C-alpha cells in the first residue's frame, strides 16, 4: 500500500509518525523503519510517500490523526501504479532502458535511493530499498502506464 502526504507541515507529520530519523532524510532518499512496517521516501522538503505492510490497516487512522490541524494533504493516489522487482534482476535492465532526469544517476544506485526517470518517454519513479528482507526496486508510474512499463521490463 502506498500513501502520500505533502505540505508545509509535511516533515512535522513525518516526524510525528516515524520519529527523529526522518528529519535526516535527504530528498529522494528513504528509510525503512526498524520493524520493517514502513518504507518512507522523501520526495520534496515536505512531500513524503509511504509504503506500508499489507497487514497494517491502522495506518490510515494514524496518518489522519497526525495530519489533523496541519497544513498537509494525504491520500492514496488512485492515479499512481506500482511494480516491484528484485534489484539484482531489474537494475541491469533499467540501466539499459531508463533515462534518469539529470543530475540523477542510475548507475550504482544504492539502497534507500530513488530518482525520477523515463522509459521511452514514459515517466517513472524508481525506488530501491530493502523490504522485509528483499532488496527490491519499486517502480511508480501512472496507473494507465502500468502495463506498458511492465512490458518494457519484460516482466509480467
Amino acid at each position, binding site marked *: 500500500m502506498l500513501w502520500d502526504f505533502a505540505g*508545509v*507541515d509535511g*516533515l*512535522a507529520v513525518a*516526524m510525528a509518525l516515524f520519529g527523529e530519523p526522518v*528529519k*535526516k*532524510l*535527504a*530528498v*529522494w*532518499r528513504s528509510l525503512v523503519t526498524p520493524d520493517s512496517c514502513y518504507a518512507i521516501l*522523501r520526495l520534496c*522538503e*515536505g512531500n513524503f510517500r509511504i509504503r506500508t505492510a499489507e497487514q497494517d490497516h491502522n495506518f490510515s487512522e494514524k496518518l489522519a490523526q497526525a495530519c489533523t490541524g496541519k*497544513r498537509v494533504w494525504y491520500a492514496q493516489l488512485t492515479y499512481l501504479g506500482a511494480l516491484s522487482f528484485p534489484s539484482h534482476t531489474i537494475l541491469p535492465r533499467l540501466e539499459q532502458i531508463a533515462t534518469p532526469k*539529470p*543530475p*540523477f*544517476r542510475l548507475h*550504482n*544506485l*544504492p539502497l534507500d*535511493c530513488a530518482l525520477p526517470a523515463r522509459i521511452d518517454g514514459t515517466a517513472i519513479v524508481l525506488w530501491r530499498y530493502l523490504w522485509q528482507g528483499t532488496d527490491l526496486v519499486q517502480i511508480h508510474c501512472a496507473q494507465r502506464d502500468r502495463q506498458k512499463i511492465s512490458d518494457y521490463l519484460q516482466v509480467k
Partner: protein
Amino acid sequence: MAVALIPSSLPALWDCTIAPRTAIAYTVRAGQYIQIIDVEGQQCSDFLAFALDDLTEELDSTVTRTLNGLAVPRVGLHGKYFSNRFRPLVEVIQDTCGRHDSFLLACTAKYYEEAGYPGHPSCSENFNLALAKYGIAPRKGWSAINFFFNTTASDDGRVTAGESWSRAGDYVLLQAKQDLLCASSACPDDIDPANGWRPTEIRVRIFAPEHNFPKAIAYRPTPHAPARLTQDSAFTSSIRQLTDDLVEYNGFWVPNSFAHLGVQAEYWALRERAVLIDLSALRKFDITGKNAFDLLQYAFSRDLTKLGVGQSAYGCLLNYHGGIVDDGIVFCLGANTYRYVGNCEQDQHWLEQLAQEHHWQVTIEHISDRLHNLALQGPRSRIILEQVLAIDPQWQISLSELGYFRFATGTIKRIPVLVSRTGYTGELGYELFVDPAYGAELWQILTAVGEKYGLTPMGMLALERARIEAGLLSAGREFDDLTSPYEAGIGWTVSLKKEQLIAKDTLLKLKEHPPKVTVGLVLDSNDIPCHCQPVYALGKAWRVGVITSGTFSPYCDRPIALAQLKPAYATPGTKVEVGFIDGKQRRIPATVGVMSPYDPEKLKVRG
C-alpha cells in the same frame, strides 16, 4: 584549468555575417555548434529553430522556461532550449553576455507602426522572408529567443527593456541536439535602447562536433577586465565523478549537491562526521612590502598589531563610507608578509588604490591560480587529518594543538599544504591550501583515509544551510558596499582603537546609531523564509526589517533566518512577524535571537 574564449580566427565550417537590419536562415546538423557573435556590442540577435525533419516542431520559449524553471536557460544543468514537443533542440554551451530575453516576440511591424514608424523593418518580417524558401508560413510576430536583448520582469509584472549588456565580441555558443533549420537576425530596432539606437551586424559561425567546447560562462572580475570563462578547480575532475549538479560560482564550477546523497545527507554528514568542500573559488592575495602592515591595518577592520606568524584574523575590507567591500581572513606569514583570502578579485584593485593614495610601498600579488583550497569540516575532521598530515617541524606544534584561527605548513603524503583552522560551517574544521597540481591526489588521499570516518563530499546547498545556522555572512545577502559591519552583524571585527582605520569617524557614528542590526530569527511555523521577505512589527502594518537569508534548520527543527531589523526591534526575545505569500496575507510570528542558533558560543569551532 582556465578555459579560453573561442578565438575569432578559429576556422569554422560556415561563417556568415548578417547585415544590420536583416535576418538569415541556415541548417545545422546534430552535434554541431552555432556561435552567435555580437560583433560591435549592444546588438540583439533573435533566434528561431525548427526540427529539420519536421518543421512543425519548433523552439518554444514557454516550454523552455517551464522545463528549466528559468527565464532564460543557463549554461549547465538547465541549459537546454526545448521544442513545442518538449524535446531539446539546442543547448547553450558558452555565454559571454549572460543577459537575454525569452519573453517578448522578435520585434514586429506592429511595434514600429504604433511608435510612429510605419514601414520600419522588423525581425519578424525579416524572418518571414528568410524562412519562405523553406515553405514556412509568415507570422505577424515570431516567438523567438532574443539573444543580447536586455529585458527584465519586475515584481509588478512589467517587462521592461534597456540597453544590451553585450560587448564587442560577446557570443553565445549553442550545440544542436538534432538536425535543425535555424534563423538568426541582426535586429533593426533603432527607435529604443535595445540596440543602443544603432543596429550593427551579427556574425554566425558553425563548428564541427569534434571541437567539444567546454561549458562555460564569462566572468569579468572587474568592469574593464577581459572576459574569462568558468574554470574547473584542482578538485573538479574528482567532483565530476560524483555529481552532475554543478553551478557557476565566482568563475568556478562548484557542486550544488552530490548524487545518491542530497542536501540533508550532506548537512548531517557535516554535523555528525566530516565533509570535504571545494572552496577554490575564494580569491587569494599575497600582500608584501615595507608598508604591507600599514595598508592592511588601514583597510581591514581588525587590529593586526598582535597578529603573529601562524595566526589569522577574520574581518572585512572597508570603503570610505564604512561599507563592506569584502569579508575575509588575513593570514600573517611573516614580517610585512600577509595573505588575504576573500571573495572578490576587485579587492586587489581597491588595496592597490589605497596604497597608491598613501604612497605606501606594497606589492599585492593575486595568487588564486596557484593555490586552490579544500575545507575539511566536521567533528571528525581532526582525526581524519591526523592520519595523513605532517606539520613542518619549525612550527613545533601538533594538529591537536593548532588553535582556532591558527595555521601551519606541512605535508600530506609529501604534498605541501597550508593547513588553517578555519571554516564556514560552524564546525570544527580545517582549510587546506594546495598547489592545484596536487589537487586530484589530495582529494583522493583524503577521501580514502576519511572513508572509515564517514567522510562525504558536501555541496553548496548544504553549506548554505550550515552557514546560516552558524550565523556566517554571505556577500550580497548580509552585506554589500552600502552595509557597514555594524549593520551586517560583524561590528565585533572593527577595531576603532586603531590609530589608522579607513572611515573611522563614520564607523564611530555607525557603531552608536546603526540604521539596522543583523539578528537571527526562529519562526513559529514550518514556512521557510527567503531573501528579501518583509519583517513586520507584531500586529502592525509597517515593516521593521527584511530577511537576508532563510532556511530550514535541521538542527533547530525549525525555519530560521538572518534578518536586518531596525535597532528598536533587535533585542533578543522580541516578537516580530515575517510576511509570506504577498508579504501580507500570511504573517508568521518569529522570535529575535542570536545570529547563530547553532553553537552560539562557538564551542565546537574552538573545541
